[in-house]
């Protein structure tokens, strides 16, 4: 096993976490991680030693996620992830009421965010990249990451609050 592969194995738990946050589904997340590993191993010469391996690998995973997301959208399934989330909500709705704010609630909430807010939130809140690091990873200005993360965080928090008593502003 090369050091590249050893680094990749060591990064798997974090790759799974990021993929879970992006896809909202454990099974889809693991498929995404597997695809990302395969692509990374094929393209490992593109990694520059001395740079951050986690950022490079996250970018591989994130690009794959966006590709498949856009392919689904092109096939007419623009709201596919949201439909999936709502189906799940109906299926286990009773349990959710009892458990209050569960992991599934948050995952479902994340799925309702526009993808650029979701990835900004996932990288800066969950993976704890700084805004500057996330900006470099995504290839956009830090201010853009911040405004996307801010909108994503506020929207997620609103979704997770108990249903208002009718006085929502």
């Amino acid at each position: 096993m090369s050091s590249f592969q050893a680094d990749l194995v060591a990064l798997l738990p974090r790759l799974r976490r990021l993929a879970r946050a992006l896809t909202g589904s454990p099974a889809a997340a693991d498929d995404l991680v597997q695809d990302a590993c395969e692509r990374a191993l094929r393209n490992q010469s593109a990694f520059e030693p001395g740079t951050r391996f986690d950022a490079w690998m996250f970018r591989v995973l994130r690009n794959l996620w966006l590709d498949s997301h856009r392919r689904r959208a092109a096939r007419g399934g623009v709201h596919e992830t949201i439909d999936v989330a709502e189906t799940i909500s109906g299926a286990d709705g009773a349990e959710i009421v009892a458990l209050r704010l569960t992991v599934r609630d948050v995952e479902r909430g994340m799925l309702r965010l526009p993808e650029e807010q979701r990835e900004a939130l996932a990288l800066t809140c969950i993976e704890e990249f700084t805004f500057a690091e996330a900006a470099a990873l995504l290839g956009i200005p830090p201010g853009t990451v911040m405004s996307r993360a801010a909108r994503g965080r506020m929207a997620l928090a609103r979704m997770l609050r108990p249903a208002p008593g009718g006085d929502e502003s």
Partner: protein
Amino acid sequence: MSVTDETLLLFVDGLLPEAEAEAIAAALESDPALAERAALLAEGRDAAQRAFADTLSEPVPAHLVAAAMAPAAGNDNRAGWRRTGFGLLAGVAAGFALALALPGGEGDGMLTPRILAALDSRAGTVGGGVIVAGTHATEAGTICRAFTVAERAGGMAGLACREEDGWRLRAAVARAGGGGYQPASGVDPLIGEVLERLGAGPALPPEQEDAARRRGWTPAH
């Protein structure tokens, strides 16, 4: 006071310089709408962090470990183990027990020359830190050998089974810890579980192991 999302975000995350932070804190006192936005920013962050906090400690499925270790085409990755991955691999052990079918022999890159040398010899220390812990025959008669590899930063336990074209790695468990890998007694429990699924019996006695070795590890019948 008009405060942008970006500034409020930095405030909530404790990243604003002190003077600016104090100004925002003062504005929050008299501006309920601003206070509400700050509360939402903090709630959204905390919810996302809490929801995914446990994901890191979940065992990683074996097929993902195999995918990450698959030798890239054209690369010779048999040079040997690097220690980098071992520390974190300890948490992966539970998933690894399910590595019954490493696809297409992709795990075989892990069978280094010194492990292969040990697999072809009698049980006992062979040198290079590889110890064959026991030899087992599966239901189908296939010979499998459990082994451990000691590394300074941890070690691994593995199970290799003899196929027509050579040894195939069937399962591997990595362990972190100082002082090298110490098998408590006999076979690692996870390797034991894989042996059970293969329908393998207890370790063969020395004379049967010798006979299997003389047959080139082929089935007895």
